[in-house]
């Protein structure tokens, strides 16, 4: 499957108004997901990014399309995990902290994007 196909899949999957790749805009949640998250979590959010499938990770990344697992986390958990890394959630330290790379607005949008990927709501 080529990159253009991945974008179509992702768009169909989440029914989101943002398409990847976007026309020259940096920082949409879909772009950010592909740029920062997909290397480990996969371009389709399955947890099967290239670093995982190449055998580079000692702990498998979370599947963001697994509604059962994702619904165990609150939106605040997701925010914390993205901003401060896996350690902040007592999960794998292979998940980096992105809080010095992405703005809090970027992270909020990524949380919304993750909820669209899993088609689930977070633990209240």
């Amino acid at each position, binding site marked *: 499957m080529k990159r253009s196909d991945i974008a179509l899949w992702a768009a169909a999957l989440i029914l989101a108004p943002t398409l990847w790749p976007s026309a020259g805009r940096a920082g949409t949640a879909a772009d950010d997901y592909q740029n920062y998250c997909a290397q480990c979590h996969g371009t389709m959010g399955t947890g099967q990014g*290239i670093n995982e499938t190449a055998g580079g990770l000692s702990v498998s990344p979370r599947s963001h399309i697994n509604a059962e697992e994702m619904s165990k986390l609150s939106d605040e958990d997701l925010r914390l995990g993205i901003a401060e890394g896996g350690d902040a959630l007592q999960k794998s330290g292979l998940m980096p902290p992105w809080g010095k790379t992405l703005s809090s607005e970027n992270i909020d949008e990524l949380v919304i994007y993750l909820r669209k990927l899993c088609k689930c709501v977070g633990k209240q």
Partner: protein
Amino acid sequence: MRIRWIEAPAALIGGVLLMVSAIAEVAALDGKALIEERCAACHDLTGPAPATFEGLLKRKAPDLFYAGSKFKRSWLVGWLRNPTPIRPSGVMFLNHIVVEGGKDRIAADTLKTCQANLDREEAEAAADHLMTLVDASMKTGVIDPAKKFSTPKGRRLFTKQLPCIACHTAKFGKRTMGGISGPDLTKAGKRLNPDWVYARIADPQYWDPMTWMPKIEMSHRKRELLTLLIGSME
């Protein structure tokens, strides 16, 4: 008459030397012209680095406008003569991904290796010019490559306390391990200027605003340890 006999050969030798010198000057390769002719089609020689996702996807090869800060000249000369892949996922991994059964993998047939293959003289001239492309604000002399450090501590930092190993392939002893979305670091010590490694870890987005390497705050000691560890990978 004696003086003239002595002067004549001296003048002749002097003239020959002048001619040889002039010919050598004409024949000396212009590294700047060479780089612009052979490398500019793929590499950005002037900057700035892409600041949008779309720009990132369009990048064909690593930026070279700070090559003199980033690389070691000795490595450049060797690599320009015989380029080998450094980035197992290409310059931007998303451009080389295929998905099969929900699993991403890199389509190796889409990766292109630099075709520079310069001869020795060309490589020397090109490296000379690349070494002039520096980032004036980068601090130099920060890292002492000869400084002793604890390899186990460095390894623990690289693989456990920080997520470097998730994206970079590294070699510890005989074991090669790690992810592939970042540049291969197994021979980084031969390739990279330690001061640049230190600066890159400190602020990846300064060098490349859209890089997928996270900025992680850490102490000077930890950053120095990481830099020394990476410098030892040869």
